[in-house]
């Protein structure tokens, strides 16, 4: 069964009945659809899935899903999800956030989540702006984008999250586009299926504060190359990438991190013996 053949109703079953607060036309609507399509394709029981997010328009997503969810604080979703997955390896844990949540305030957890390589799937809805706080630049914003907080633009080179993910150890790296929900669903399926930390950047236009992003549909294209497992080749590719190549860009083979739980636990009273005089 592939994403296209999964029935729309199977996907819809993963949606909650809560109406999103998003602006009409926001890219996040189709990311939501892509996620439900992916869950349906994988046939995940909704109660076995937890979607963890931070704060931002994109981070509102858990409430719109019929899975378990955690809408935490700004920037800490990957850390919260790490604790959840380590304590409950049986669950499928997906993290969802925005470019501000994930790369600005959440940058350290992003680095260390990649490095730790816990079996999580991290979906970042990248709109190169702080949508929820009404239009400030994020790390992925173009240096010359004019706005009230940094008039004339930040003057800073945009952050390349895929390169950082690769450099810090993510095991699966892909880029999707919200205008292509079927393709994005496919990426999410592969991300979930690949063990370890999987990072999926989804270009998801903010129609309100970045109306120029409506043009993204003309800019994106399938990456002209096949996914690679060669970290050097991937580095070269990602460093020169213009940000609009879609598809799986790197798949590694690192073993996911797990905490080792003894199969033969003893009772607390046994370990107390060490204190006996």
């Amino acid at each position, binding site marked *: 069964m592939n994403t296209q053949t999964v029935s729309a109703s199977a996907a819809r079953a993963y949606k909650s009945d*809560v109406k999103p*607060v998003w602006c009409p036309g926001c890219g996040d609507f189709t990311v939501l659809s892509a996620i439900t399509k992916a869950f349906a394709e994988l046939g995940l*029981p*909704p*109660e*076995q899935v*937890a979607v*963890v997010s931070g*704060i931002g328009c994109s981070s*509102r997503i*858990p*409430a719109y899903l*019929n*899975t*378990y*969810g*955690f*809408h*935490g*604080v700004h*920037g*800490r979703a990957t*850390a*919260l*999800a*790490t*604790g*959840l*997955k*380590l*304590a*409950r390896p*049986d*669950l499928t844990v997906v993290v969802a956030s925005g470019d501000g949540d994930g790369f600005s305030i959440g940058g*350290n*957890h992003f*680095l*260390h989540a990649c490095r730790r390589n816990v079996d999580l799937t991290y979906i970042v809805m990248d709109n190169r702006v702080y949508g929820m706080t009404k239009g400030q630049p994020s790390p992925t914003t173009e240096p010359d984008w004019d706005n009230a907080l940094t008039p004339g633009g930040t003057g800073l080179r945009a952050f390349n999250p895929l390169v950082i993910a690769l450099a810090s150890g993510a095991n699966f790296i892909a880029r999707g586009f919200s205008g292509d929900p079927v393709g994005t669903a496919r990426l999410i399926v592969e991300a979930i299926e690949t063990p370890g930390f999987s990072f999926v950047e989804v270009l998801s236009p903010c129609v309100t504060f970045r109306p120029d992003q409506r043009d993204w549909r003309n800019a994106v294209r399938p990456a002209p190359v096949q996914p690679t497992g060669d970290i050097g080749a991937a580095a070269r590719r990602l460093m020169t990438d213009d940000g609009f190549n879609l598809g799986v860009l790197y798949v590694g083979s690192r073993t996911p991190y797990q*905490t*080792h*739980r*003894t199969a033969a*636990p*003893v*009772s*607390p*009273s*046994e*370990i*107390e013996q060490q*204190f*006996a*005089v």
Partner: protein
Amino acid sequence: MSEDSAEFGNVSIALTGSGGAGVITAGAMLLDAAARAGCYGMFVRSSGPQIRGGEAAALIRLSMQPVEAQDDVFHLLVGLDWHNIERFAVELPLAANSLVIADPANGPPPEVIIETGARIVEVPLKDMAKAVPNGRPNMVALGLIAGLTGLPEETLQAALAKVLEGKGEKALQASLAAALAGLATSAGLEFDRRLPAATGHEKSRWQISGNQAAGLGAIRGGVRFVAAYPITPATEILEWLAAGLAKVGGALVQAEDELASINMIIGASYGGTPALTATSGPGLALMTESIGLAVASEVPIVVIDVMRGGPSTGIPTKSEQSDLNIALFGLHGDAPHIVVAPASIGDCVFTANWAVHLAESLQVPALVLSDQFLGQSRAIIDQPADLAFATQRLTVETVGDGYRRYALAAGGVSPMAIPGTPGGQYTAEGLEHTPRGMPSSQVTDHVAQLDKRRDKILGFDYGDHWAQITEDVDSDLAIITWGSTAGPVREALNRLRAGGRTFRLIVPRLLAPASPQRMAAALRGVKRALVIEQSHSAQFFHYLRGYFDLPCPADSYHRPGPLPFRPGELVEQIANWSAA
């Protein structure tokens, strides 16, 4: 110091020396030997700013009674050398009848020692050590101290054997020979603080530090997931738990920072595993935002703050009770949560255990305020009772339609669906929300959820655990204190009782929520109260004034660290106050 703990069967010893001299090793062995000899005791380490190679002091008190404070003076000081001793002088009060053992190889004792008027006796520790192949002066000193304090030779042997287990027979024999040389020398020295022989005891005893005790309490309470970022003086809790959890089937993960560790335990607990982290002031400050998330989303977690001198990086290796304010009030918004504090090293086991119980039962963060003194001191104590607490996390097993995670249940605690529970899917929410967990800015939802979160912790039955109310419960003069200050206060009150003055002692373990009714009941009949604490701004005193209806006028005795309270100081303060 107004009065001395002159009673028989109680001796305080300081062993000092520069880094590498081995005073800490010798101190640990001495405590172990004393434990085997049937004594109670406490072992405090003090060291300079150097990581290694700096001056250090092992401060040991042995007694036939349980020990919860350092004594007013040291009866015996053994100086392996006098390196930087001025830095320690104020931590090493000596009296005229104290005995100082000085090694002539180090030259004349320093002025700070001489001016105390203590009796100084020269013993050539280094030369004696040299006389033993591979002998070391710290072992000679250990033997000397054991001899002077009356610890039987076999306890010394056993203590040495335990520590040197892995080092081979030769090392053990060398150390033993040096110690025995010291022991032999002690016979020729006058010292009036020899401990009596112990007469056996019923309860079994433990040797434990407060940090280990807190870790153990957490495991007893059911904690099986810990996220860790090291910080002095909390690191030992985490390190002990790393090994302990591995044995009981739990796990510890090292986090990149405290922002991560607090969120990791929220995630783990949301997943159904009781979870904890431990830190100190700077780390707690970083965690408050997310502790607020746990309050709003009603996820149980336990955070242990082992307090040190503040503000900012402050004095990492010294104790203070100055994180009370941040623990009570450090969260933004109205964010009711639990704050508890252990009142002794042994009580760390109970209080950490209870904290897990409260957090889980109430689906709320519980903060445990320990401190450097409790955490890093090691004591010989009666084995703590293993209490089983009844209520644990209220969960749903089967869920009908329309599960409402934040339903307004009676008592405020609503059953929690653990991920994996079919039909229980919900989103844990840090925004204000409806009973179903949907974001809401409606006044009805806000008030209902604020009430719920407050009422569940106010309505809970904390039983007698909320405070230790001891000493002379009929006295109309009350002392109120908390945490590690309780130990020296208790000893001060014992001395005052010996002088015929009696006081009621109230040591709340439950600091938040404020329990004005319980406090009022505890104070019934009291005419005046004195609040004692180790903070510069009298945080506890002001908290009591603000949130409790003290039925009597209250006064404050407070001062900051780094020096510990000693009973004599408190005897004086309490006596003056009660006479006023």
